[in-house]
């Protein structure tokens, strides 16, 4: 970067972050790249509720109670708040290791492996830790150059390691991890309630009108009933099955303190007599930990300013490690071969659209891209 850059406004760190996230509002909002399904979710929720408020609510407010639309509004706002919170939050992304840390880990691995005869494949990079008397294997992430903490996993879609990785949800356009799992759960729960609510009152509305003028006449003659109500009922009917089912599934997971990722992989299914070391063996405690636990801060610095350094060393340099990095990057790159252990290539699991399959580290080509660009490594 030349001295000209200093005169311009300093970029924020999110502009140089590796990974495949998109950022909005100057780094405050963080989402996955593919947002199409998220827009569909928004459209369905806002569209259905608008129809409900426009067509059913006036009738119900007059003939039954004004509390009905009021409660619907409150529920709708809560659903939207939870959806946006889930979609826009940092799910718990782990920043990639800086070159110094990556080298340190490399040296530890090599020391642990000893001398591997030439031509032989080195052993897989696994660290065993004991958690609550269970042996848990920590895997090495070749993209992020770290040993993943327990329960963390690498999302191939976002190309980040995420703590307490649950799954990547295209409906919210983001990963669901440690930091936003409770918002995701509350979103599914409140959406279930909203769907049931609208569905119920749609039926009530049709029944009430039918009492007055007969069922078929209601559908034919009453303006505003036929397209909107039927549409709402259809949307709610199909949404009900999926969202209520999903809420039930996540309630089950929370009571056992498991993630979707662990459930799919069968980590604690007991076939190896390995039990979940994170569970408190008490449903209430598990629920409290997941839903009422502390709100973890984001460790991904998105809004800090990156001040580019001109060559003289005494100039204002705010980015730590910005100068040593280009040199270290060149020396560390050859040390870290981008090989994959057999465990890393997992079959992608086809599941319902709401539970998008968690993806394992991508093939070497993508990993190389992360390594060879000094700018990307410089940031984190």
């Amino acid at each position: 970067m030349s001295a000209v850059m200093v005169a311009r406004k300093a970029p924020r760190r999110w502009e140089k972050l590796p990974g495949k996230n998109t950022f909005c509002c100057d780094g405050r909002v963080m989402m996955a790249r593919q947002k199409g399904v998220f827009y569909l979710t928004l459209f369905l929720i806002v569209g259905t509720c608008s129809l409900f408020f426009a067509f059913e609510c006036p009738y119900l407010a007059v003939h039954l109670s004004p509390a009905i639309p009021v409660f619907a509004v409150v529920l709708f706002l809560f659903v939207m708040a939870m959806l946006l919170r889930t979609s826009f939050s940092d799910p718990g992304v782990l920043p990639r290791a800086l070159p110094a840390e990556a080298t340190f880990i490399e040296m530890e691995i090599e020391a642990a492996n000893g001398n591997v005869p030439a031509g032989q494949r080195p052993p897989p990079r696994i660290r065993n830790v004991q958690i609550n008397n269970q042996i848990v294997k920590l895997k090495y992430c070749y993209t992020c150059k770290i040993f993943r903490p327990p329960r963390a996993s690498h999302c191939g879609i976002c190309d980040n390691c995420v703590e307490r990785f649950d799954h990547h949800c295209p409906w919210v356009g983001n990963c669901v991890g440690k930091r936003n799992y409770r918002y995701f759960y509350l979103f599914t729960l409140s959406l279930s309630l909203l769907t049931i609510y609208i569905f119920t009152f749609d039926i009530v509305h049709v029944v009430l009108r039918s009492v007055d003028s007969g069922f078929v006449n209601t559908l034919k003659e009453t303006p505003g009933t036929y397209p909107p109500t039927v549409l709402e009922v259809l949307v709610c009917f199909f949404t009900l099955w999926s969202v209520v089912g999903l809420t039930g599934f996540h309630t089950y997971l929370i009571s056992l303190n498991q993630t979707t990722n662990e459930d799919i992989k069968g980590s604690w299914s007991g076939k190896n007599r390995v039990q979940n070391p994170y569970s408190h063996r008490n449903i209430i405690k598990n629920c409290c930990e997941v839903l009422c636990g502390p709100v973890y801060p984001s460790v991904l610095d998105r809004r800090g300013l990156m001040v580019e350094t001109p060559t003289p060393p005494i100039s204002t340099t705010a980015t730590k490690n910005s100068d040593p990095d280009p040199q270290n990057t060149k020396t560390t790159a050859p040390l870290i071969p981008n090989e994959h252990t057999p465990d890393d290539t997992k079959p992608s699991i086809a599941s319902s659209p709401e539970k998008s399959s968690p993806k394992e580290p991508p093939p070497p080509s993508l990993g190389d891209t992360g390594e060879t660009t000094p700018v990307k490594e410089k940031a984190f």
Partner: protein
Amino acid sequence: MPLVPPYCEALAVCPIKATGSDFSTGTDPALSNGNMATEFHNLQELRRSASLATKVFIQRDYSEGTICQFQTKFPAELDSRIERTFFEETVKTLNSYYAEAEKIGGQSYLEGCLACATAYIIFLCMETRYEKVLKKISRYIQEQNEKIYAPRGLLITDPIERGMRVIEISIFEDRGSSGSSGSSSSSTSSSSGR
């Protein structure tokens, strides 16, 4: 081009801290901006005399689960640089701070329920307990650096800057005899850019 020690960069003009709320209650460990002028001045002397030799990374201790704890094992590289007791004291205190931040009890329930009732909008204006403890940690690390580590040519980096994965301790070698960095009582700030 000589390596510019990150130690010195950490002490350099502090960048503008990211302020304002965001959806993820981003962290902003406290910085003592008042000391920056004196730091910068002492920094000039330090640059001449200190150079980064190596870095040691204290790893996480997962024996109690996923809560944030660091290993208290004394690394061999620090053997000649600092007394074991100081190091263990620092790590144990940090561990207790993190345990306090992540404690699941009455206060966290209250905070969680209150926040849920307001659809978490309250977090846009209120600082969470975890963030408050993180500020305490940042101040503690700064104080430890000033009193114990900098005089011995060491510098602790706040774990939050490394994704809470490691405690990074930078080890500096005194270069030549012109600077008395070992005995200079420069105040240090280990966190910047947040």
